[in-house]
């Protein structure tokens, strides 16, 4: 998974063509840590989606700029536009279903 920060966020996400998934996480967020391996697993299944993660401890303002104020949150962008947003009570199965939807 591509590690995002304020230097590359614009280029890799907002100006990027196609599907981009961003996993907003923090090492202090236990549910995020539980989710991360599942997201990594899904990365192998959906090759047409660019998988990225953003550590909010280091990039707080960037996350708030995307209106993310809670963890775990996963946003899928298409051509830089938000098309799916999952926050708080979602499972990796929910995420897989959404990925199937957007890649169909």
């Amino acid at each position, binding site marked *: 998974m591509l590690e995002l920060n304020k230097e590359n966020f614009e280029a890799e996400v907002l100006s990027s063509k196609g599907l981009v998934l961003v996993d907003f996480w*923090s090492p*202090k*967020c*236990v*549910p*995020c840590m*539980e989710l991360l391996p599942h997201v990594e697993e899904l990365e192998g299944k959906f090759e047409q989606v660019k998988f990225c993660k953003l550590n*909010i*401890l280091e990039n*707080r303002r960037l*996350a*708030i700029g995307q*209106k*993310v*104020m*809670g*963890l*775990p*949150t996963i946003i899928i962008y298409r051509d830089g536009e938000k098309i799916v947003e999952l*926050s*708080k009570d979602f*499972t990796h*199965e929910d995420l897989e279903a959404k990925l199937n939807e957007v890649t169909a």
Partner: protein
Amino acid sequence: MANSYDLIIIGAGPAGLAAGIYASRSKLNTLVIEKGVIGGQAATTEEMENYPGFYQGVTGPQLTEHMHEHAEHFGCKFVKDEVVDLDLAGYEKVIVTKNGRYTAKAVIIATGAEPRVLGVKGEKELKGKGVSYCATCDADFYEDLDVVVLGNGDAAIEEAIYLTRFAAKVSIIVIHDEGILDATKVIQERAFRNEKIEFIWNSTLEEIKGDGIVEAVAVKNIKTGEVTELETNGVFIFVGTVPKTEMLKGKVELDQRGYIPTSEIMETNVDGVYAVGDVRVKYLRQVVTAAADGAIAAVAAEKYLQEEENFKNEVLEKELATAVMFWSPFHQGSLDMVPMIEEFASRHSEKMDLVKIDTYRNQRIARRYDVQDIPAVLLFKGGEVVGRVAGDITPERLEKLATLA
């Protein structure tokens, strides 16, 4: 069978983990099913200063991770899966999950509770957008920002204090009169001393406002009815918890609020099914009491399995008829009957065995066969009761019973 266990524990919070430790250490083949985070609600609590022996330097996630390792050390197995259906009525309990099917001879329900949703306008829409129920998950977003906390119990005030490490200002909305909090004294004092905390008394949260992200809250004064708007970046809601028992409705007795009533040894109203931790009706919902519940239930379940196994082998699955005498060493009348019944059984030893059940130690089997008074003698054949003598037990009545064997 690969998916068959002695004991299945549903939920891996402190209660489920402690039960797993005790059960697997007693060599019960034990499985813990957890759909989410190992550690339960405790894994989302940073501040943990009341677990005995750990007054400094342990967090909720650390403590529960130790418990997890501890259980695995004794051979307890874990699976990440979600229970979707259960059949608890029979001797063999069936648990259906999203990805499999399991059977067990005993089940411990440790599903816990979850933060209660307040149900005000904007709450659902702005969840994860400034509305939070977990300070440790989301506190980092609020560095130098303003937040509002709703609630005034231990959880609310402790989490508000935790938030002051990040936020510029924490406003706590309290429904009571000025100076009154439900939280414990020591926590109250700490909050009153904290310069970043401000209290809004006699008030409730009416609405959460914002366009895609929290911008303000409407606070209503319950005395005057006046509603004021307060700008804020985040709202943390701690107004109690609700038990996670939705799928247990109609399968295990629940109280009006959905909690599971249990006996002193964590038994539910269903044989072989126990409930531990926040999900049961209890006075204090803390990690230490959850762990205690888990230990008690695991020991009770172990004893249950042993008794049931014995009863099955010695009574239900015997070819020969079996006379089961219910007695108690504390009941003189039943004690006096023992020699007569032993003599009776030995006289008919070619067609029946005798098993004695101490109802002081095991009331469950007596209850199952509706034995209300002791002494009582029930005659079993082919796993069924074919005759019974209770109350006034005479040699004549016993002889009549023997003819049924």
